[in-house]
């Protein structure tokens, strides 16, 4: 589903590469934790998948497409295949829960009929039924992140990228959020989650890829947080 072949990324005006010679393959339907200290290259890895950044060297393949050679006008189509969740939720403060989720479909030109059907379903799946009319600031952090996950998933993308989705949440809430992601994973969605949260990684026992200074130093199935602790 996602393949990195000898990928290096050097940001301009930076002395050392953010990623150097990365080889990584994520299969369809996998759940992968990407762990490592701040600045180890986790976010860069996700940004390369989204083509928010271009690679300096090597090839990134997403859903069979070579992201590096993808022309700018085809980038939106790539991003429709990928849902994204961030640490800071990124909700629209003046839109309700329902409108925030519907927005993702509206901008893709979906019909009102389809939106009225899919949005309540998705909100129910993430456990927000009955809160459709709330504004983001009326919700707890965990609930806001659920809205963000609903927005990322409402278009049923085959890939979900999560950049420290539990970074702003307390441990109990964090675990709820990751359980939700796990449930989404079981519907066949590939999930790549960058995280600092050792508790969660240790509890879920999924595949763990550890980065340090832009190198993969560990890649194990059913792994624990380990050395970065």
């Amino acid at each position, binding site marked *: 589903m996602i393949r990195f072949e000898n990928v290096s990324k050097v940001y301009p005006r930076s002395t050392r590469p953010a990623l150097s010679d990365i080889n990584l393959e994520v299969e369809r339907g996998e759940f992968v934790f990407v762990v490592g200290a701040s600045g180890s290259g986790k976010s860069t890895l996700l940004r390369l998948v989204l083509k928010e950044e271009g690679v300096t060297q090597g090839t990134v393949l997403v859903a069979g497409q070579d992201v590096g050679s993808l022309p700018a006008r085809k980038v*939106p189509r790539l991003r429709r295949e*990928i849902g994204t969740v961030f640490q800071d939720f*990124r909700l629209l403060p003046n839109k309700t829960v329902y409108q925030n989720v519907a927005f993702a479909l509206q901008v893709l*030109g979906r019909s*009102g009929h389809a939106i009225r059907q899919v949005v309540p379903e998705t909100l129910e799946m993430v456990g927000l039924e009955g809160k459709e009319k709330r504004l983001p600031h009326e919700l707890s952090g965990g609930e806001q992140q659920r809205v963000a996950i609903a927005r990322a998933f409402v278009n049923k993308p085959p890939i979900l990228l999560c950049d420290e989705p539990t970074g702003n949440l307390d441990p109990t809430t964090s675990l709820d959020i990751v359980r939700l992601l796990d449930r989404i994973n079981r519907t066949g969605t590939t999930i790549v989650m960058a995280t600092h949260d050792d508790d969660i990684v240790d509890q879920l026992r999924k595949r763990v890829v550890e980065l340090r200074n832009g190198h993969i130093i560990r890649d194990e199935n059913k792994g624990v947080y380990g050395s970065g602790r």
Partner: protein
Amino acid sequence: MRIQFILSEIGIGLRRNLSIAISVMLVTMVSVYLMGIGFLAQGQVDTLKGYWYDRIQVSIFMCGKDSLDVNCDGKAVTDEQRDALRSQLDEMKPLVKNVYYESEQQAFDRFKEQYRNSPLSDYLQVGDIPQNFRVQLSDPKKYEVVVSAFEGAPGVGRVQDQQKTLDKLFKVMNVVTIGSLFLAGLMVLCSILLMATTIRQAAFSRRRETGIMKLVGASNFTIRLPFVMETVLAALTGTGLAIAGLWVTADSLLPRVSAVLQDAPLVGAHDIWFVAPWLVGFMLVVSVLTSWATLRRYLRV
């Protein structure tokens, strides 16, 4: 893309940036108005030229009893002198197309008729305007030939060429045209810069929305369309107001000018129908190009 969604996004955008949208509208209005005035003034010059060049005449005023012209030396023109002038004019065909003779009585009547509203006509007596030949030329530009042939001839008081008078008028009109188009150019530049600034500001204030649009894979077209539409809407509203202003100008101000110019044809409200599509088209192109170019720079994927 759903029309309803796009419209609501445009509505939200305009409400958020109402004051700046209004300023884009007003600047556009002034620039389009000035541009329209320039075009109308030029149209007026063309209309008048067409009208007058058909009628342009060289008037050869002969000496009357009380003529003050030096050449007359206080004596009125004699019949022989008049006949000599007439045959000389006949020889100048084909440059001379037509010759009309106007007696003192006819000249008096015509003046009375043309200036019937003027208090001047009450003091005029028969003989104040001397008898004259009105000479129509096949090529109005060669008036000099006729003027030089008759100036100073016996019995001729004064040769008056209407072209000279008209040229002065046309010069004034040309200054109006060039001046208003120059100002319009400056204002168009102003409105382009203002549109660009507006879009930069709007793109910045809505970076959260556009960021999410990019993430979920909305096309560039979808992301940019509301910005472009807002600018176009503000610009076209301004253009509409300017055209309304031009209409009022042509419909109520110009008729007052026409009293001065007598029966000469004037550009009127109907001429605006020919200018308006160009103004709208121009502003449409300017606003779309400006906003698209600005968005390319400030709203990258």
